[in-house]
């Protein structure tokens, strides 16, 4: 075979690998009514109040995770690049830990550290538990967020821009808020997409902290019903991509990216 034919074969294999399960799920989700395709399973899902509640909860959590992750990662990555470039491998390694340590270990650690009889009884209140869950999500998204922001910082001359701003009288908050963050926003967005996807589908942390998130809900439906889980998967997939699309559009609205395209 010619090289071109080979690359087509590989492409088709890859496409099948990704698309077949999706197509299969979609097809199955439409078969609730015997003998014909129908949207019955979807109707059931959308009428389920739990679906709306858990999905809304997870979306809010995802957005908060992105905001807090950004507040944590951007100044850290900036500071490391500016002042402690030699520490970069160390910090990078630390941010990679969540990939190596299973979430179950993290959540057990949290529960041990912050249970109701501990020095900081965060699990004692709903707010505290929500906070804990959000920080857990921030941790899980750290590897992607840090990498994305660090890559973004590489595209600008962090040190000289900082010095230019300083010589004009700017302090750290102004420098990070007006110069650094806007310049890495597009990179932050790509970290945000991944974070969003992680949080929407996350099961372990939410289940063990007993929060009404979308992950545990999916698991519950999956264990108890036949066609609805497939419909749910398709819906979740669509909404997630829709949200990511929205974030894309939002990030394109920044003056810099507008300028870059013109």
């Amino acid at each position: 075979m010619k090289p071109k034919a080979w690359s087509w074969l590989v492409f088709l294999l890859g496409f099948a690998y990704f698309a077949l399960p999706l197509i299969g799920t979609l097809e199955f989700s439409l078969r609730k009514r015997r003998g014909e395709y129908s949207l019955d399973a979807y109707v059931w899902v959308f009428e389920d109040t739990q679906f709306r509640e858990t999905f809304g909860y997870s979306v809010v959590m995802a957005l908060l995770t992105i905001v807090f992750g950004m507040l944590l990662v951007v100044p850290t990555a900036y500071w490391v690049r500016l002042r402690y470039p030699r520490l970069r491998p160390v910090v990078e390694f630390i941010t990679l830990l969540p990939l190596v340590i299973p979430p179950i270990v993290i959540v057990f650690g949290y529960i041990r550290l912050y249970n109701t009889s501990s020095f900081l009884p965060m699990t004692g209140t709903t707010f505290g538990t929500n906070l804990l869950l959000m920080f857990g999500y921030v941790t899980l998204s750290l590897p992607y967020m840090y990498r994305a922001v660090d890559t973004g910082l590489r595209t600008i001359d962090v040190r000289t821009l900082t010095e230019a701003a300083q010589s004009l009288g700017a302090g750290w908050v102004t420098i990070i808020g007006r110069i650094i963050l806007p310049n890495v926003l597009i990179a932050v967005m790509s970290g945000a997409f991944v974070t969003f996807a992680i949080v929407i589908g996350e099961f372990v942390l939410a289940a063990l902290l007993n929060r009404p998130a979308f992950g545990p809900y999916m698991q519950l439906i999956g264990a108890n019903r036949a066609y609805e889980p497939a419909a749910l998967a398709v819906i979740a997939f669509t909404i997630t991509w829709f949200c990511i699309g929205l974030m894309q559009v939002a990030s394109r609205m920044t003056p810099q990216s507008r300028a870059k395209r013109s």
Partner: protein
Amino acid sequence: MSFLQLDQLRKSFGATQVVRNFDLEIEQGEFVSLLGPSGCGKTTVLRMIAGFEAPSHGAIRVGGDEVTHKRPNQRNVGMVFQSYALFPNLTVAQNVAFGLRVKGAGKAQRAARVAEMLSLVGLVDFGNRYPFQLSGGQQQRVALARALAVQPRVLLLDEPLSALDAKIRVSLREEIREIQKRLGITTVFVTHDQEEALSMSDRIVVMNGGVAQQVGTPHEIYSSPANRFVAEFVGRLNVLDAEVTDPATGRVSVGGTEISMGRPLGAGTVPLALRPEAISLGPAPGHDVSFRGTVDEVQFLGSVIRVGTRLGAAQVLLDTFNRTGRKPPRLGEELEFSFSSVGVILLD
């Protein structure tokens, strides 16, 4: 008292001392260049004035206030970088307004000042552009406008022209000097380009190895270099080893040509230097020393012709104007050359 004082500045990075006992006094409105080879510590001195590096020893005073330990954002010292360092996410106008915004200036005030600054640097219609939509020269002008917008007490420029091509470099340096004179702003300009330093400065500091070798006006630096380094670094130079024939009256001999230095010298050999333009082809008024030599190099440089010959053991180059109707010397031609003993620089 001078406006900007650097008092016994020292800076070490680890064990290496990069700036040694650096003293400098700059008057208000003066334009001073730091000139020296790569790695001699020019940028380090400038960064200490700006506050980006803390001196290991010594003091910095601006307008009588000690600023040695002040943070860079509290010094009100403007800086222009070689790499322009414009904020890529802000328009030209926003870049220029940045410092005013930080200071809390109102919108109307900012707009007025931005307009004033952009007209100063000749970029009135560029306010809405982004930095990447500008040429290098335009970007550097924006950087200058941005630094000047907050009316800094001192303006620092670190090789602002090195990233530009030759033609823009010359026109922009004239423009910078013009603006500096108009605003009367005290300026320190770092360069390794002697032509830049000579043409722009009120005074030049020639640096080497972290030490100020000589401080003086361009004319002083060029005509009476304080030492061999300055003489060789600034301008072209012919260096000749001369035999002292009469120590008491200062007569020396180079390859049989006698020169009177007019002052007592030690016995032995002394190094002498001659600028290429001090030597002329044939006799000339005031030239009391002449010698014959064979032309061994001819470089045609447009308005100037550079001719090489030998005097004693050393090759000497001389510059002569290209005049219409006169043929340039030919290689191998034997000619008479002359110079004035007053123009001979004694190196130590």
